[in-house]
């Protein structure tokens, strides 16, 4: 990743030695235009991205909105303790992990398979059409997607019609799909695949295009068929990309998304659809329990931070050492 070299660089321009201070100030004055062009946005960054982190203090307080910061009662880790003894939070944690797990595995398997199949298409025009169609759902909002999914899954929707057509259910037995809590993960997984599988193939297709064509020719000479070439050349060729992306995605394990769960969720499926983000929203902004909600959000950010950093580190090491 490009940004890591800037991160690991030890020398910080902001810490000039006393002797260099004068030089630093002189440079700063002569570069005042660059300063004017960037510093206002650093101030913006500070207000909108760093000040909220200060808001984490709420998680350690018996927060009263009417009181000033100094007057707040500090309670240590009490809110975190009650968070982890709260069934609803533990369920939302389970749902978060389950849904991002489903997304991870299903997303990878479908995107890689789809990329492999697309790569075997020789008619360029056909390939273009398939690509255009399959990227489309990525660009509609989750609101629109949820509208479509609800229409499809309604009792009088197409899926029930299909089941009736195959004789799997009788008229009058139509399923209320989004009302079946234990089906929610499946519906979520299928919806996510529908929305993003095409888009996710882009990076694999790019990786496939950098495989040396001579490898295919050699395999062909040896009499390897299409499936074999796919299995023994294309797949190993994109293996490094798959592994790096997999590791990077593990960094986002607590980010199971918010919109699909919120938009497709309802009272009937809450036990399976409610993830940490929805827990934060419900406790925080609907029940006004700011400390507990902030604690939950902070837990998510801190764990994600650790996961992301480890993932980045591992991915970088693998990339450099070419272990795979």
């Amino acid at each position: 990743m490009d940004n890591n070299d800037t991160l690991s660089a030890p020398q910080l321009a902001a810490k000039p030695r006393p002797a260099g201070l004068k030089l630093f100030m002189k440079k700063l004055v002569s570069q005042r235009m660059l300063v004017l062009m960037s510093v206002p946005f650093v101030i913006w960054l500070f207000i909108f991205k760093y000040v909220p982190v200060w808001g984490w203090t709420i998680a350690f307080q018996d927060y009263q909105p009417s009181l000033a910061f100094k007057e707040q009662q500090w309670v240590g880790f009490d809110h975190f303790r009650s968070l982890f003894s709260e069934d609803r939070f533990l369920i939302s944690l389970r749902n978060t992990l389950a849904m991002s797990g489903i997304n991870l595995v299903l997303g990878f398997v479908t995107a890689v398979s789809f990329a492999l199949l697309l790569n075997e298409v020789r008619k360029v025009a056909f390939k273009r059409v398939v690509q255009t169609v399959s990227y489309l759902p990525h660009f509609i909002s989750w609101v629109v997607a949820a509208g479509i999914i609800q229409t499809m899954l309604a009792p009088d929707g197409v899926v029930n019609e299909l089941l009736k057509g195959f004789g799997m259910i009788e008229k009058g037995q139509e399923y209320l799909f989004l009302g079946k809590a234990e089906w929610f993960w499946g519906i979520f997984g299928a919806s996510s695949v529908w929305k993003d599988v095409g888009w996710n193939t882009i990076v694999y297709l790019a990786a496939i295009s950098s495989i040396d064509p001579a490898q295919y020719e050699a395999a062909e000479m040896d009499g390897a068929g299409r499936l074999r070439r796919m299995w023994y050349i294309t797949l190993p060729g994109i293996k490094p990309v798959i592994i790096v992306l997999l590791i990077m995605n593990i960094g986002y394990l607590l980010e199971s998304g918010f919109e699909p769960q919120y938009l497709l969720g309802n009272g009937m499926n809450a036990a399976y659809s409610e993830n940490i983000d929805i827990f934060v929203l419900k406790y925080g902004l609907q029940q006004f329990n700011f400390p507990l909600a902030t604690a939950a959000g902070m837990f998510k950010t801190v764990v994600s931070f650790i996961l992301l950093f480890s993932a980045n580190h591992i991915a970088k090491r693998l990339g450099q050492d070419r272990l795979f």
Partner: protein
Amino acid sequence: MANATASTRPARSPRRNSSLGDRVFDILNYVFLTLLMVVTLYPFLNTLAVSLNAASDSIKGGIHLWPRQFSSENYKFVFNEATIYNATLISVLRTVIGTLVTVFASAMVAYTISRQEYVLRKLVTIAFIITMYINGGLIPNYLLIRDLGLINSFWVYILPGIIGVFNLIIIRSFIEQLPESVIESARIDGAGDFRTFINIVFPLCLPVLATVALFTAVYQWNSWFDVFLYNSSNVKLSTLQYELQKILQNSNTTSSAETAFANSSAGAAVKVSPLSIRATMTIVAAVPMIVVYPFLQKYFVKGMTVGGVKG
């Protein structure tokens, strides 16, 4: 991307002796991919058909790709509400203003951190990169917006998201690939950094800025959560996506009532139903994106690869 993959083709395109297995594979592959396209598109077309079908008839089910009993009542109903015009205007405004502000600000900051001699370069870069890993989360952000007095204001759509780190990095990488001589020659002509940026760097960056603009525009057009969170009490600041979200939320809680509604004799007399309004509003909110998308698709894909290589 499609071009890149296609370029490997000619080498192995003339099949000398494609075996029977290969041909079977080919046929199955085409059939499968065609089926996949159908599955992808079908939900859109089905929703469109439901939106164009008479509500009292849709309730019986069985609408597929074509309306059974054509009716424009649903659209008349949706466009009869004054809110939808205002919501469309707000959606367009936030998309246009948000995109312009993001593109200009991101390019400008990217330019400053691409200047190797800039003394604050590392500081500014690191300040931005840290925010990739840490964010305050929902509640602290909400409290900040509230304390800044941005609740019930249009600017809450623009201000919090002016510069994204990812955009900043891809634009910086792009600027760093420009020949230094171009910038140096502007300097020799006596142009300051701002003039160099406006007259030289900005126009040269248009390819990458187009990509950033597209992604920002999609993001702005599709957003609804900030409307819900900050401006839900002010219908004048509502957007198309949020109007749709409200309909979804309603029909979500009344989905069992919907079935009851279907069975009641009143159903036949009413011209619209929650189901048909939902489908119609979905189409209204989706159509601008679907119409624009095929023309811009290649720029999106280009942007993905730029990010993939350098990000």
